[in-house]
């Protein structure tokens, strides 16, 4: 799958991550109104494709932090603002 084949929600969270610099997955879920289960699945998929970096962080409530990976710059993004999830 190439970055061009990203889903809308994936583009949205990539845009959020790039704007935030670094953010915890739970905070990102709350900001983007994506449900926790879906968020973790999506993040794991994006991390596998090197589009985000997930690292352990004992200070984070959920124990993880997400950073934009260098490859994410090539991926198309949506405007980073809190929106309702698509039905």
């Amino acid at each position, binding site marked *: 799958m190439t970055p061009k084949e990203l889903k809308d929600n994936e583009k949205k969270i990539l845009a959020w991550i790039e704007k935030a610099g*670094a953010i*915890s997955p739970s905070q990102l879920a*709350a900001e983007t109104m994506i449900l*926790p*289960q879906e968020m973790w699945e999506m993040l794991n998929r994006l991390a596998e494709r090197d589009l985000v970096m997930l690292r352990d962080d004992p200070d984070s*409530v959920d124990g993880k932090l997400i*950073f934009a990976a260098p490859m994410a710059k090539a991926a198309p993004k949506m405007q980073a603002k809190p929106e309702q999830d698509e039905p």
Partner: protein
Amino acid sequence: MKDDLRNRFNFWATFSLIVIATLAVLLAMPLDLMNLNPVVLQLQTRIKDGLGSLTPFIAVGALGAAVGLAELTSTFEDYPREAIMTQWGQYLIWLNGGTAILAFFIIRFYAPPETNIFLLILMVGIGFPTLIRTNFTFAKQFGGDGKGDMGINLGWLYEQFQTLCKKQIDVELMTFRRKQVDRLLARYPTVLELYQTALYTIKARATFTKAEEETKLSELQQKIDPKFPIEAARTEIGLLILEVGGIAYVDLLVEARREAPTPVAAAVAEASRGAAAPAAAVTAPVGGGLDSESVVKKLVEMPLDDLVSFGVSLLNASDDQDWVKKAAQPQGNITEVKQKAPIAYYLVSRLGVDAIVRALQNRNDSSADKS
């Protein structure tokens, strides 16, 4: 504090200024017009005479010291002021100044009395530092690498001393840098805060070219690599902030967290948040010493069902209530904390820290009343 290089700098600068100012006042005062003890008048005359004969030595010493100073600042470009204030940095300056004075003393002793004193000062002040750094080559090998040349290296001794100084200054600066990073880490303990501060610092540097900015950003990216231990990542990011922003910037960041933010510190903190708006806006400390992260952690401590009913009772919009309920529904392979944390963040972002703190307080009070 003896260990702080900047304090040492301020102390000596102030001390020198006081000595010079006192001497200037003493010499400028028309003491002969006042009805003073002749001893005082004699003292003034002697100081004037003494200074007159010392001036050439001071001038030569200053020229020699300036050369040492230039060597230090060009070698330690990132920390010139701190390099000058290190113990071995001062040895180097004093050695340059002192040997120039000694050379002037000897040359003046043997020079004919009619020699122009200004020319002599210039010749020794500039010529002597040049001489002790010179390698004279009498015979040069054709096309050789220089090893077979015949000559006298007058600079050998000075080179050895310079190498020693460089090593010692490096060690002293390393300790100094470590202390600054520790101060920063004490105030910005999480990787998230450090990363966002580093990101802002790199982007805010007006003199960075696009390529330099990219290089620094990729350095930062390497430091948060998941393979890197968390403690090492924190220290490395702290060091990067120090290198990119400088010591004054680290001071400003530390001060901004130490007390209630001053207008400048608040402005920097605000600008720093601007680079990473969504995350930092939520992690920013709020009044009363409570920050949103602490409130989120408090909420996560509640059982999931309690958290949901607590949240639903506070949220007015049905969309918000629905989202909280959906997020709490039993889900496949994620832990309860991973369900509770997004709900907690959601409540904080929708209701604000103060409202939640008040609601938690009321909840505690009512449960205390019941019991």
